[in-house]
């Protein structure tokens, strides 16, 4: 296993890798810096930006002027709500496919995956129309439903790959010991399934938080989550660098932290188990 690497080699690799990583990460780092500057300083040269005074003003102003936390709250409700609802529907489905597979299981899984590949723009107008008819346009309820539906295939798939790793022998052993269906579910399967369910939820909250087609097209002022709220800065308002930075930092920070914890699940979830 241990391949001999000299200290020199390791030093060189470290320097290159850190340089590359900093270049890739730089845009994020830069908006963090800008968010702590005054508007005047934020548009000056990078040297001046770094040497000028630091301030929390932008964070306060963003909230005062635009009701930032309303949109933040919308994002939380939509991301968490759609994920919980999705889990509720997907757990039984994935459980039955993993433990009571039939000849059709494979076909159903593949079909579910194929619905994920339906281009959203192809069904934009019908959904838009249905939303108007049902009074769901610019409502959190509507977004929760749509985001639940677009992520449902991923949730089912991820849960299925996790559940399939639970050894069936454990069930048989429990049955031999006289465990009923309920005991089997409660004391044997649930504890083993919880890590998989938690990872699935984590990834799906991230996906829902960042979804930016339906959130842009189906919301206005009232139900707009952060994706849509930030897009409102594409008007000349975007010229306020410090405020845009502060709004952006607050919008991406929670999800960045969650994302770093979910690297492994990301691979499994987004490749549908094809790469592990």
């Amino acid at each position, binding site marked *: 296993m241990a391949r001999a690497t000299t200290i020199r080699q390791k030093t060189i690799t470290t320097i290159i890798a850190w340089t590359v990583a900093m270049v890739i990460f730089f845009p994020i780092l830069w908006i963090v810096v800008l968010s702590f500057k005054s508007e005047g300083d934020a548009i000056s040269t990078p040297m001046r930006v770094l040497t000028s005074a630091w301030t929390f003003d932008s964070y306060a102003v963003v909230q005062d002027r635009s009701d930032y936390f309303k949109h933040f709250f919308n994002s939380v409700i939509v991301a968490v709500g759609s994920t919980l609802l999705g889990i509720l529907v997907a757990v039984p489905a994935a459980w039955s496919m993993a433990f009571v597979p039939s000849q059709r299981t494979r076909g159903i899984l593949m079909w579910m995956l194929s619905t994920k590949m339906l281009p959203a723009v192809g069904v934009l107008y019908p959904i838009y129309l249905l939303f108007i008819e049902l009074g769901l346009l610019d409502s959190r309820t509507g977004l929760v439903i749509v985001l639940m539906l677009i992520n449902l295939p991923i949730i089912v798939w991820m849960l299925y790959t996790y559940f399939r790793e639970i050894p069936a022998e454990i069930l048989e052993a429990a049955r031999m010991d006289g465990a009923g269906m309920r005991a089997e579910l409660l004391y044997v399967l649930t504890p083993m399934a919880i890590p998989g369910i938690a990872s699935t939820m984590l990834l799906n909250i991230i996906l829902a938080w960042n979804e930016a087609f339906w959130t842009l097209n189906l919301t206005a002022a009232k139900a707009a989550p952060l994706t849509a709220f930030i897009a409102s800065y594409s008007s000349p308002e975007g010229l306020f660098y410090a405020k845009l930075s502060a709004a952006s930092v607050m919008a991406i920070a929670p999800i960045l932290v969650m994302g770093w914890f979910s690297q492994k699940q990301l691979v499994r979830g987004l*490749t549908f188990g094809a790469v592990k």
Partner: protein
Amino acid sequence: MATQHSQSVARMMMAPAVILLLGWMLVPLTMTLFFSFKKYLPLRGGDLGWVGFDNYVRFVSSSSFWPAVATTLIIVGGVLVITVLLGIALALLLDQPMWGQGVVRILVIAPFFVMPTVSGLVWKNMFMDPVNGFFAHLWRFFGAEPIQWLSHASMPSLVMIVSWQWLPFATLILLTAIQSLDTEQLEAAEMDGARPLGRFWFIILPHLARAITVVILIQTIFLLSIFAEIFVTTAGAFGTKTLTYLIFQRVLESQNVGLGSAGGVYAIILANIVAVFLLRVVGKNLDA
């Protein structure tokens, strides 16, 4: 083991998910198909009757169709080439022993978690703005005239923004694949005197083939439908109108629903062609 009873219970447990997805797929699809054969202008007279394949013909013969196809191909192709090549290089780099590997990994994958509207706007304003952007300052520092990124070099700019977002995804998946490579095989090759390039070409790359395929297919599906990045940066101006964006404009901006729906059907067919290949790769894994 699976009895008649457990089979029917299983079917019941699957029913909600299947019914929901079936509805989600069939209802809007049927409506899109329905509208695509109609002249339907909600703001200018509403439903003006059946027109057969008229919308389909008009969508492809409109002057914005072929440019949109070209734009779509450039974005998808450009981003794929960049992310796959750089992704392989980065994955190989991150696999090497180094100090602070965990932190480096975290920094590299971070852009993937930035919401598309934020990354679009941050690049547009803080970096590509020809007056106050970071690049403008940098260019001026070296005595060069700042570039009007999003208007004069709109396509390279967009490809750059989207590549920045997707490079972490490619890197992460390729890195996962590299780490699953049997190190003994590499050591054996090294013992036999295989040079680094040879080891890469004959052992690592073939091992990565499947992961690369997955990256290409999944990214293609997502890249075909990128929207927010264009919406907040150029809003389709300066030749950045992709098929997705063109359909969006037809449907919601000019409210020509029939025409847009025909475009939507084309988009669905296109995505399905890619999906067939992806499903084949994923399906193989199910049997294993």
